[in-house]
């Protein structure tokens, strides 16, 4: 089914936006002070905007794909967040996390190539 590939692509695109949104949100919250500077905390605002865009793309993805296929593929978000934490936030990865990422890749991949 062609529409299914559109759905998968859109979901993965949505997870990309969501993971960057999470990154900027976290960076913005770290800088957050409870005064007027909150309004010009562009990092935080960018994070929230990215989340909203991710949400809109996800809704469009659901137009084309089944919920029981789209929702699990959202686990791809964990992969991006792991990579972003490693390369941008310089957080430590360990074997458990890599193993987890591997399982998610296999699970999402299997879902992606399955017929429905």
């Amino acid at each position, binding site marked *: 089914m062609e529409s299914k590939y559109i759905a998968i692509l859109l979901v993965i695109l949505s997870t990309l936006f969501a993971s960057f949104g999470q990154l900027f949100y976290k960076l913005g919250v770290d800088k957050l002070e409870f005064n007027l500077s909150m309004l010009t905390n562009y990092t935080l605002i960018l994070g929230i905007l990215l989340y909203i865009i991710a949400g809109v793309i996800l809704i469009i993805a659901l137009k084309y794909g089944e919920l029981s296929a789209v*929702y699990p593929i959202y686990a791809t978000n964990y992969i991006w967040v792991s990579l972003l934490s490693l390369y941008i936030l310089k957080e430590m990865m360990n074997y458990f996390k890599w193993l987890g*990422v591997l399982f998610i890749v296999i699970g999402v991949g299997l879902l992606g190539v399955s017929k429905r």
Partner: protein
Amino acid sequence: MTPLISIIIIVIAAAIGSFGALFIKKGSKHFTIKKPFNKDIVIGVLLYGISTLLFIPALKLGELSVLYPFVATGYIWIIMLSKKYLNESITLTKIISIALIIIGVSFIGFGS
């Protein structure tokens, strides 16, 4: 130590989030950029927002190695809800994929 209350909140939040996803899926049918708001989308986003508001403090209360597997129970809700309310077929492939993803999420929790 992971307090039991945090596990309970996570399980509830995962369930609420899944129902939110269900409503969003129902509302996506009539979603257009020009007319983005309809009853199902609004309910879905609200439910999803509530689950997020529950998740964030609960995850801080306990260890991710214990809590992440319970976050993954959301996937199980999705299988049940999409079969019951959306008539989606739950193939063996889907079940295996989701099982792998749940294991993966749990490992990420163990490593955190």
